[in-house]
């Protein structure tokens, strides 16, 4: 029974042209987002500011100005806010220096000395993941896509519930199937579709990133993306239950927007929390959101991709999310069963809870 319902939800949705179009658009955006920085990165000369920390360093820096031309770049020697400082046989910078700049300095270093010197070592003051920027970009997308996916599929659950309610199909369905099975089938069918869509999007994204060289794709990164998918499942189960209740409360699609308002607000706030966490993935706020179930599905994946969430915190956050979902689902199913046949006017949540208790 549950399988029949789930299959209908899935196939009916896939057959809609709007679904295919929106999936295509999302894929297009992902491919563009991965490739655009690369395309722009190759165009135009680059500008670097280099400082010399000692006599040898100054000589290298000055030589670099002449060398730069053959790298399609310009180098200026200055002590003010340099991209890198050459000192004591090292290239020193706060963040990972550009590959082009390192190449220029290495060539300059070879040229200023008669005997071939040892290559300059790159030293950064803050330990930096070579893919830091690319990963931050990926994390940003993870936040956006999870937000969009949770909102869209939650909305589909709610509109699906209202569609059955307003068309009275639910009366025929409930004569052969228990309300909670109907709800489970609907949520599972749409959830599988959402998961499949995410799987396609993330696979295409990773392949394009790996092939184009925009990102160094290794086991860790694939694991982090896979964990994001797990977070979608957790977040979806939570929000689908809540959206189903909101849908069951109203008799017509026109009244759905109002009933969904609190939920869409929570998801929107989670989106902004996600952006804040992406800026500072190890901050206090980031740690707090891990333990707020409605927010964690949007904020946690980005921290996992950035490697900023300790394993115990991920485990605790998942456990809390699972626990709250397991509490919410039967509660939602009971409210749904109690109000889904009320066709006259919208039911207040408090009234719905009272009815569910009375059943």
């Amino acid at each position: 029974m549950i399988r029949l319902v789930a299959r209908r939800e899935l196939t009916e949705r896939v057959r809609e042209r709007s679904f295919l179009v929106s999936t295509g658009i999302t894929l297009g955006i992902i491919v563009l987002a991965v490739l655009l920085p690369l395309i722009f990165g190759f165009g135009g000369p680059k500008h670097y500011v280099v400082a010399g920390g000692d006599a040898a360093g100054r000589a290298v820096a000055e030589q670099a100005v002449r060398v730069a031309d053959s790298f399609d770049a310009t180098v200026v020697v200055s002590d003010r806010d340099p991209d890198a400082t050459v000192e004591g046989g090292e290239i020193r910078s706060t963040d990972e220096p550009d590959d082009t700049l390192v190449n220029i300095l290495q060539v300059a270093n070879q040229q200023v000395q008669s005997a071939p010197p040892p290559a300059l070592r790159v030293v950064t003051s803050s330990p930096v993941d070579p893919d830091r920027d690319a990963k931050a970009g990926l994390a940003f997308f993870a936040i956006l896509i999870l937000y969009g996916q949770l909102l869209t599929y939650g909305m589909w659950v709610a509109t699906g519930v209202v569609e059955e309610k307003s068309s009275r199909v639910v009366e025929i369905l409930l004569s052969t199937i228990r309300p909670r099975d109907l709800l489970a089938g609907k949520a599972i069918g749409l959830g599988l579709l959402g998961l499949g869509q995410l799987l396609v999007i993330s696979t295409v994204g990773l392949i394009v990133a790996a092939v184009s060289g925009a990102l160094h794709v290794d086991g860790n990164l694939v694991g982090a993306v896979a964990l994001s998918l797990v977070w979608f499942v957790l977040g979806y189960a939570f929000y689908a239950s809540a959206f189903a209740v909101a849908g069951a409360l109203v008799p017509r699609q026109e009244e759905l927007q109002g009933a969904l308002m609190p939920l869409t607000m929570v998801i929107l706030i989670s989106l902004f929390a996600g952006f804040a966490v992406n800026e500072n993935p190890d901050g206090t706020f980031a740690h707090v959101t891990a333990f707020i179930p409605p927010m964690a599905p949007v904020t946690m994946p980005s921290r996992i991709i950035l490697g900023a969430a300790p394993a115990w915190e991920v485990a605790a956050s998942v456990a809390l999310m699972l626990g709250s979902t397991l509490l919410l689902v039967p509660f939602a199913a009971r409210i749904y069963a109690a109000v889904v046949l009320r066709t006259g006017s919208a039911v207040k949540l408090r009234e719905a809870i009272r009815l569910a208790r009375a059943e």
Partner: protein
Amino acid sequence: MGLTRRFGDRVALDGVSFAVEPRQMFGFVGPNGAGKTTTMRIILGVLGADAGSVLWNGVPVDMATRSRFGYMPEERGLYPKMRVRAQLVYFAALHGVAAPEEAADRWISRLGLSSRASDRVEQLSLGNQQRVQLAAALVHEPSLLVLDEPFSGLDPVGVDVLSGVLAEYAATGVPVLFSSHQLELVERLCEAVAIIKDGRLVASGSVESLRGSAGSDAVRVVVEGASLEEVRAAAGSVGRVVSAGYAGPSLAELFREVVRD
């Protein structure tokens, strides 16, 4: 049997009992809000009863028995965006039909919907939507058919088609229970009726027996040996004659009688 259902403080049904026989067309009538839909929903198991039970061959019905019932809710009862054939296949499968595609195709051709099978329901005319609705209620060859206001909004031709299909289906040995406001129609189609008011059953039984017991405060005057014209003329000499005829109480009169406050 003794169906009772409360919504909050309101008693929607209070001890409603009636029986529907095989092959019987059973009319369920009553004013708006009397509890007709609630009763049907309880029969179908869509709603639970606070007291009382629904019996099938003397045994309380369970989920397995109910999946053999057919139900047509008031207005629509179909997915507007789903295609006709896919929809019927889905309903057949939900009711446990072994070959849902064949069952759907059979009813599609039987109700003359073949050219519309791959259209979305919302693209169909109202008359065709009603046919799909009927097919959805019949696609699993139910052992009991329950229809909530099946004739509302139908033109006379639609009424004839629908009543023909229902009578034909009842003739196969299946009880058909439907509610309606069109009392003349109920009187024409049904062997038995139940009249409900404010959640209580005020009359039930065969149409014939109800007619016999009707009109407790009416005076029956039997005029013998006079033609209708003579009676009308005599009555006209003392007052205005609204109508004169040979009829016994129609079901409509009966209805007005029993639901009068």
